[in-house]
């Protein structure tokens, strides 16, 4: 159980909800990931990390699939169930 209350997506402003729409589209899902909610709770931090992720994750030299594999490997090594 989370140690902070995560707001519902509709508790955020229109700009944040636009970001959530992009996130749902990017991942092909119909909900907002909890990490996205966390990042929008602290925009001063979340904006930079979101920008870095948008820079790092698309197909470039490595494919997005390869990058998601890296993310999964790092998560497994850190035993991060989320």
């Amino acid at each position, binding site marked *: *159980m989370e140690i902070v209350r995560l707001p519902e997506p509709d508790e955020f402003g229109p700009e944040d909800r636009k970001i959530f729409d992009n996130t749902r589209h990017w991942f092909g899902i119909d909900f907002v990931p*909890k990490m996205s909610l966390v990042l929008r709770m602290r925009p001063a931090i979340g904006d930079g990390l979101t920008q*870095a992720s948008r820079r790092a994750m698309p197909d470039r030299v490595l494919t*997005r*699939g390869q990058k998601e594999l*890296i993310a999964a490997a*790092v*998560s497994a090594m*850190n035993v991060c169930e*989320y």
Partner: protein
Amino acid sequence: MTNNLNSLADGVRCPLDFGASERRPLLALVEPDAAPPEVRAVYDEACRFYGMDRPPAVLRAMAGDPAFLRGVWSAVRAAFGEPEPGHAGRLDRLTKEVLALAASVTAKSEYGVDFHLREVRRLGLPEAGVLEVLQVTQLFNGYTKIADALRLAPTDFAPLARPKDADPMRPG
């Protein structure tokens, strides 16, 4: 396999194979000219596999027991080799080395980072690609810490249907 090898290499302070290193190993490494034939056979395979003139220090560190060395090396070859014909969609060797580099950075393995950084470059990954590996590794080492610190519960994803024989490593 990456953690398997890195744990020994860093644990007994194997000298780095490529970068400058003042590490002195805590046990005697079996050098090729002193190795019995069965060990030399593994060394020769490893040198060909990695394009090296001298076998990796981590193999020399475990060569005091040739049977053990052969077992581990067989597993390394199976894990890191190119997929056999007829296995489309399996990971290619460069992708496996990319994952090994990410794992080594995550585990803070000096030996592993030195080894796999050289290997991804040798296999053709340009510096822009190396940066991408490090960027994704850095980001997700951070995200996993945030998720754990806040105890974010995982989301249950419905299983995705995949087209038969789809290659997940190619952009759609």
